[in-house]
């Protein structure tokens, strides 16, 4: 009975597309995603070929005996996927989750870095 209850709760969680910033800096691309309420253990990042899939779950449990007065947010299943450019060095992608924001650093591959071409005098 208890297990059944947990399942229905999971199904009721709405799917949320996390707000995302994609920024290019000198050392590569940065992706920032707002995922409030998601703990490190509940976050999954999958890299498959050229696609990054990020999913996480936030759940808020109301302790018994507490009355809810006003609600503006709730738990949810965050999901978003991105296609990674060929310029990115896929081996060195790093992710960190701090204060509910996931930061993905996608460094540019060496060959995509801007280079100066030397001119030889003949």
């Amino acid at each position, binding site marked *: 009975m208890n297990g059944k209850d947990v399942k229905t709760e999971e199904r009721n969680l709405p799917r949320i597309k996390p*707000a*995302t*910033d*994609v*920024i*290019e*800096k000198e050392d590569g*691309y*940065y992706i*920032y995603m*707002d*995922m*409030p*309420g*998601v*703990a490190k253990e509940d976050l999954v990042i999958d890299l498959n070929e050229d696609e990054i899939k990020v999913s996480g779950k*936030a759940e*808020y449990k*109301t*302790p018994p*005996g*507490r*009355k*809810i*007065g*006003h*609600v*503006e*947010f*709730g738990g949810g299943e965050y999901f978003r996927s991105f296609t990674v450019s060929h310029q990115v060095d896929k081996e060195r992608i790093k992710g960190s*989750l*701090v*204060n*509910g*924001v996931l930061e993905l650093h996608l460094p540019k591959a060496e060959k995509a870095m801007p280079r100066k071409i030397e001119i030889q005098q003949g």
Partner: protein
Amino acid sequence: MVIDLSPFYGSPTPFDRLLESLWTPLSISQRGISYPPLNISEDDDAICVQCEIPGMDIGDLELTLTDSSLVIKGERKIVKGKYYRQERPTGSFQRMVNIRTAIDRDKVSAKMKDGVLEVTIPKSEENKPKKISIEAS
């Protein structure tokens, strides 16, 4: 004669208005909805205010408590770089919660976990419902 059917001229159609409503401005101050989102709950002992503010450190937040209100203030800073996509809100925000019960101001606690701020405001002792025992004589 030119017949212009483009949406740039004339009165906006319902469809235009729908598109406009889907487009949320990036600056917090321009948003129609209050930021940050709050949940308020209470039990017999305390009022609990939960607030979704990802990316903020508890030290960067300014929490002010008066007898009748709690003010949450802060600023979401912008990261420098070339933006390809910007959906996360930036800018200063402030939100006020009115409190209508007597509270124990010295025992208020706040904690931040995974981008969710939780402020617990204990209700003062004298305001709690008390059971009065009636002695039958």
